[in-house]
C-alpha cells in the first residue's frame, strides 16, 4: 500500500521540478525576459498606470504601441515619477531593455525622460549610452 502511494507521488514531484526549472526562462518578473543590449524607445504616451504592483506606460511609437514596465509603485514614486510627472499625449523616452521576443512590443525601463525631467526608476540598471 505505502509503496504504491510513493510511486504515484514521484511523477508529480518530477513534473513540479520541470515546471519550476522552466520558470526563469518565461519570467516577466526581473530581467531574465529582456535582452542584454540597451534599448531606447521614444513615442507618445497613450496610457499611464500609476499603482501596484508595477507602474506601466503604453507608448505609441513607429510600428505600434509599446507596453513599458517601470518599477514597482513605491520605487517609481520614490524616483519622482508620480501623477504630476506626465500626461497622456506627452512625448516620452524610455531607456532600458526590450523583450527577447522580437514579435513582442514590450520593454522594461530603467530611465524615463519626459517634460524635460529624468526619472531613474532602476538607477543601477541605466545603461551607459
Amino acid at each position: 500500500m505505502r509503496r504504491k502511494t510513493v510511486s504515484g507521488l514521484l511523477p508529480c514531484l518530477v513534473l513540479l521540478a520541470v515546471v519550476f526549472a522552466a520558470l526563469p526562462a518565461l519570467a516577466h518578473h526581473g530581467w531574465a525576459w529582456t535582452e542584454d543590449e540597451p534599448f531606447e524607445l521614444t513615442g507618445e504616451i497613450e496610457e499611464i498606470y500609476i499603482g501596484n504592483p508595477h507602474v506601466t506606460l503604453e507608448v505609441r511609437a513607429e510600428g505600434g504601441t509599446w507596453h513599458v514596465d517601470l518599477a514597482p509603485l513605491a520605487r517609481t514614486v520614490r524616483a519622482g515619477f508620480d501623477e504630476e510627472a506626465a500626461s497622456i499625449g506627452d512625448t516620452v523616452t524610455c531607456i532600458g531593455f526590450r523583450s527577447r521576443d522580437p514579435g513582442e512590443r514590450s520593454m522594461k525601463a530603467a530611465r524615463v525622460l519626459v517634460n524635460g525631467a529624468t526619472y531613474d526608476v532602476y538607477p543601477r540598471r541605466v545603461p551607459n549610452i
Partner: protein
Amino acid sequence: MLMEWLQALQEWQVATFFRRSFYAYPLLNATHIFSLALLIGAILPADLRMLGLFSGIPAAPFLKLMTRLAAAGLVLAILTGFLLFSVQPLEYAGNPAFLTKVSLVALGAANAAVIRLSPGWRAAAASGVVSPSLRFGAVLSLMLWLAALIAGRWIAFL
C-alpha cells in the same frame, strides 16, 4: 455586462486605496501568501494521510483538524485574492494564468465538497478507515491544489 462590472470594481474605493498604497498592498499580498500556506499546509497532510502516510496518527481527528484549517485558509485566500484582483481587474481578467488558477481553485473546492459529503468521508471520520474512492479524491486534491498554486504564481510572468 462583465466589462461594466470589472470597470465598476476598478473604481471601487477599496480598490483605489490598495492600488495607490505603499504599505497596505504588500501587507495584503503577504496575507494572501499566508492563507495559501495555511490551505496547502493543511490539505497536503490530510491528502497524504488518506493515501496511507503517517498511519501512526489516528485518521479521524487528524482529518477533521486539517480540513478545518484548510477551509479557513481557502476563505482567507478568496477574500485577499478578491482584493488583489480588484486593484487591476481588467488586467487579470485577460490573463490566461489567472483564469486557469480560478478554474483550478473552483475544481479543488468542488472536489473537497464532494469528499466531505461522501459516505467514505463519514466512515473515515467515524472509524478512521479510508476507502479507495476517498483515496482517489485525495490524489485529485493534491494535483488540483498544487496546479492552482503554480498557475497562480504564473500570473506575474505573462
